[in-house]
């Protein structure tokens, strides 16, 4: 094994002597090139789409505003997301913040309950048989269908919205956690058995880390669904929040505001998803991608 490592090292000087001269330090242009190769295609796509949009919505009979009009109407929303003139007349940052707070509470709740339930179902065949059919039916109920019941039960907007987020995002977390626990390789269980790892230590040192890649897949799907649900729920519930902002803009025919808000919603959703992926990668120490 050592020999195979040493051979190329010993041969290295000879190779450099015959081969091409050592590479000079790459120039700035050479280093920026791979970056440009990655950034240019999506940038071009966006530019092309904006041009197409400008062209399509520029005519006299167009029902939607072209990008130039959006910029003219709602430029303030884009350039200053932080203004606050009291009431509901706030910058988009405050609306997004309010929505994100609801998501944070609802999603934390569903992460805790979802992982705990998933661990139970993954471990106990009885629990799986008892609960799985119920979950399979409930998880297909669209988020907004829960809203009337939730409003009737909580009688307040805030907890109802949080409940809708919870009930939307908890299913993928439960199901993925359960699958993760079921798929812990027998080898790891055998190792644990030989070193007599039992009880909480067995869960903390073997089952949770082994199931972590699955759990994070569930959390990532869950956070995406939470963001989908909150926008819809806020449209109906009202108050500060990006969903209600869109609904309010629709009622006052500010189509430009709606378009700007949509971009923000998309970007925040994207950031939430990437954030969850990065956290998963860090927590599972890279085994999530393996």
């Amino acid at each position, binding site marked *: 094994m050592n020999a195979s490592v040493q051979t190329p090292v010993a041969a290295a000087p000879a190779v450099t002597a015959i081969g091409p001269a050592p590479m000079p330090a790459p120039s700035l242009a050479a280093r920026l090139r791979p970056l440009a190769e990655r950034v240019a295609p999506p940038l071009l796509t966006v530019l092309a789409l904006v041009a197409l949009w400008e062209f399509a919505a520029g005519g006299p009979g167009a029902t939607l505003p072209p990008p130039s009009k959006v910029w003219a109407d709602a430029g303030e929303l884009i350039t200053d997301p932080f203004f606050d003139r009291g009431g509901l007349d706030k910058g988009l940052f405050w609306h997004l913040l309010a929505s994100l707070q609801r998501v944070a509470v609802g999603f934390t709740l569903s992460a805790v309950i979802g992982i705990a339930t998933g661990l139970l179902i993954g471990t106990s065949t009885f629990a799986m048989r008892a609960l799985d059919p119920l979950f399979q039916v409930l998880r297909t109920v669209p988020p907004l269908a829960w809203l009337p019941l939730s409003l009737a039960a909580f009688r307040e907007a805030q907890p109802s919205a949080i409940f809708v987020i919870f009930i939307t995002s908890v299913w993928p977390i439960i199901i993925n956690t359960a699958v993760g626990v079921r798929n812990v390789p027998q080898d790891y269980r*055998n*190792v644990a058995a*030989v*070193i*007599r790892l039992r009880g909480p*230590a067995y869960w903390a040192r073997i089952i949770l880390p082994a199931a972590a890649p699955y759990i994070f897949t569930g959390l990532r799907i869950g956070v995406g669904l939470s963001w989908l649900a909150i926008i819809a729920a806020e449209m109906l519930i009202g108050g500060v929040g990006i969903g209600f902002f869109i609904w309010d803009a629709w009622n006052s025919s500010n189509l430009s505001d709606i378009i700007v808000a949509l971009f923000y919603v998309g970007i925040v959703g994207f950031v939430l998803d990437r954030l969850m992926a990065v956290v998963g990668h860090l927590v599972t*120490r*890279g085994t999530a991608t393996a």
Partner: protein
Amino acid sequence: MTANFLDISDVTVSFPKARVPVLNGIDLKIRRGEYVSVIGHSGCGKSTLLNVVAGLLEASGGGVVLDGKEISGPGPDRAVVFQNHSLLPWLTCYENIRLAVDQTLSRAMGKAERHEWTLHNLALVRMTHARDKRPAEISGGMKQRIGIGRALSMKPKVLLLDEPFGALDALTRAHLQDQVMSIHAELGTTVMMITHDVDEAVLLSDRIVMLTNGPNARIGEILEVELERPRDRLALVADPRFIAARAAVLEFLHHRHTAPGLAAA
């Protein structure tokens, strides 16, 4: 006592749905410090036998006594080196061994001592340089060395090797076999090894246990390998006793108990 340090007596294993047992009446006594290989065709139940000794599988009949105590369930006194290394991928090499050390020796050793003992076992399998690497970052041979290091770190009474070199290329395998031989010489560990490699069995073992084809496998023959240690693989190639032992095992496996698939054809 020394004659039967590990006493496998009349072990029968049958699975609920099968009419015929997998293993039938296996009787095997292993001395302290002895290196015993179990060889047989695929599917003959070699690994089943090892799992019974490890306590991972319960025998339907018979029992296993180790150092005067009947075994029940798995435990660190019978450390297993699994065929596919079974390292935990989220732990580093050091942490994989440390977990076993912490778990099995925390009563006997303090924290600093356990750290030293972990490093000692890393050094024993020559893996000190990779202590902070994760299993995905090292080669198959290195993973198996960590697996062996982890097993030895539990201070087992008997080391159970389940086809430990089966998934490795020939050169790496030879290298690891030499390492296992030197570790066995140094520590005097009792070893039971499952293998299907005839050369490996003859080179490493004091005795080779040959199983007949399963199901209903029994011990067909036991061969004493009377070659003095330390053994040198190069010198042995031409040694008539090595050749004879090899021939005897091959004769058993390929003449009297042909591979099941071939016999049917």
